[in-house]
């Protein structure tokens, strides 16, 4: 059942992310690619500095045998996901589920003004385990 779910999920993600990936592959020079690796339920970085209004394509690689997710947003977004109602997160920019052993991408345009932002995984227990980091918007 889980395998089926994973397959369906992956298929769904392919469908939903394919256009974005295609765009990213041919991304204009203004879009920066930031690789993030998840290993042992930890992000490879705990802070990220971006420019106001910058668009970043995140390439999130999950090396673990368990699923993770990458949720980027303000505290409200994090709160929603911590107690959230969505099992998976493909469609919105900055939000993606990263199944075990896979790599997913998501593109996000940061606000023009300094805003406290966080990226995190909200699968049960993962945030408390340390799966979160801060984003600083600096000119």
């Amino acid at each position: 059942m889980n395998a089926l779910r994973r397959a369906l999920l992956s298929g769904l993600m392919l469908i939903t992310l394919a256009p974005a990936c295609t765009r990213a592959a041919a991304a204009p020079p203004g879009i920066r690619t930031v690789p993030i690796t998840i290993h042992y339920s930890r992000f490879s970085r705990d802070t990220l500095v971006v420019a106001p209004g910058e668009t970043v394509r995140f390439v999130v690689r999950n090396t673990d045998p368990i699923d993770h997710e990458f949720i980027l947003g303000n505290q409200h977004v994090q709160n929603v996901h911590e107690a959230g109602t969505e099992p998976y997160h493909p469609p919105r920019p900055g939000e993606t589920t990263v199944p075990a052993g896979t790599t997913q991408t998501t593109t996000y345009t940061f606000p023009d003004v300094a805003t406290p932002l966080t990226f995190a995984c909200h699968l049960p227990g993962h945030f408390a385990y340390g799966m979160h980091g801060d984003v600083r918007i600096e000119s």
Partner: protein
Amino acid sequence: MLELGTATSADLDTIVETVASSLNAEAMLRWPFGDDRFHERIRRHFAHYNGTVRHVADVAPPSFGKGVAFMWTRLGVRAAASVIGAAALMIGAAGTALACGGLIAPNGTISLTHTTTLAAYHDGVEHYITSFSYAGDASGDVGSIVPLPGVPINVIKGGDWTLQRLQLEVHPPSPIAGVASTAEASGAKVILRTTVDSLDITVLKGGALDVGTWASDHGFFLPPDAPEVLAFYAQRSPIFMAVKFDAERAAAQGVSQGEGTPVDVVIPTPHPWVPLRILTLGQDPRSLVQADVFLLTDRQPAMLPQAVQPARTSGQEGLIQRVSEPASASLLNDLRSDDRMSWVPQHMWFTFIDVNARAADLTHDLSIDASGFAHPDPVAAGYAISERFGEGTSLPTVPIVLAIVVTLAVLVEVRRHRGLVHP
């Protein structure tokens, strides 16, 4: 039986809330059950308990077993603590008298229970005996994954009351008291499948990623620290045992919820060891991990890390060597008389290690040398990884380390937990 306290039905709400609150931070239990079922399970457990609250460790074992209604509580604590391991590989509590904790005192406090395991080493063969008990509902939503240090030559039902008898040895009561070879899509290879009562047991060979993926694909929930812990064990031995509880079969067999099923994993190995780090799985680093580890060896064993002697003060933490002495004839005779325990020899050395340590401090396993040379293998304790334990080494050449266990507390039905907790 020592009565520690008596509650009435009027105390039920208080008990339920206390237990729920105590376990609140231990999401391992809430995830599979969901909030409503979480409380309901506590309520149902105590409601049928007729109000009597007692300390299971004080239950005299001769009847071993059934009828101690603290199962759910101990399951909860245990599962919440995710301590299954070395000592016990279980998601829930061990069989009735297995655990020596599980106390809900009259004032409503709750303490973590112990897990219990026996690692008996004789003629190069390790018998690793522990007990699994589950309290999932009829849909069968619980299971365990147990990293194994080597390939077992047999997995059978353990003695009916062996673990209880060992507890009795160190905690005397008061005077009143099928082989398969199937490559799985995930990369993990199934090398043995069998059943023990209501348990479906699968022995897997594969790296941490393979086994973790296999587990996820088969409905096991792995906590966030599982990848690192799996890797810690897979570096030494890519052998894991997945145990799944079949609730329907259990019901057909008349097995009650929470009743322990002892399992004897027989592993040839030159270096017996008992995994301890696995006990920290899913634990807060500051939490106290408790387990009873019994050793029966041909000679007095040397251990790494060394267990300390008991202090005169209470609250001592660490690996505490409570007993180290020749096993009494009465103990060995009793064990030998249990079902499937005739292999117990006439003379053995008996060691009892009381594990009472913070999760952050349990970073290694317990390596044992019973050869008389007093050189426990640091690799077996996880201090270093030797090439001989590399995953690329073919199994027949792998010096099979004994030991076992652990448990990644695991709860099946990921969909359910996702839906309820992180919907």
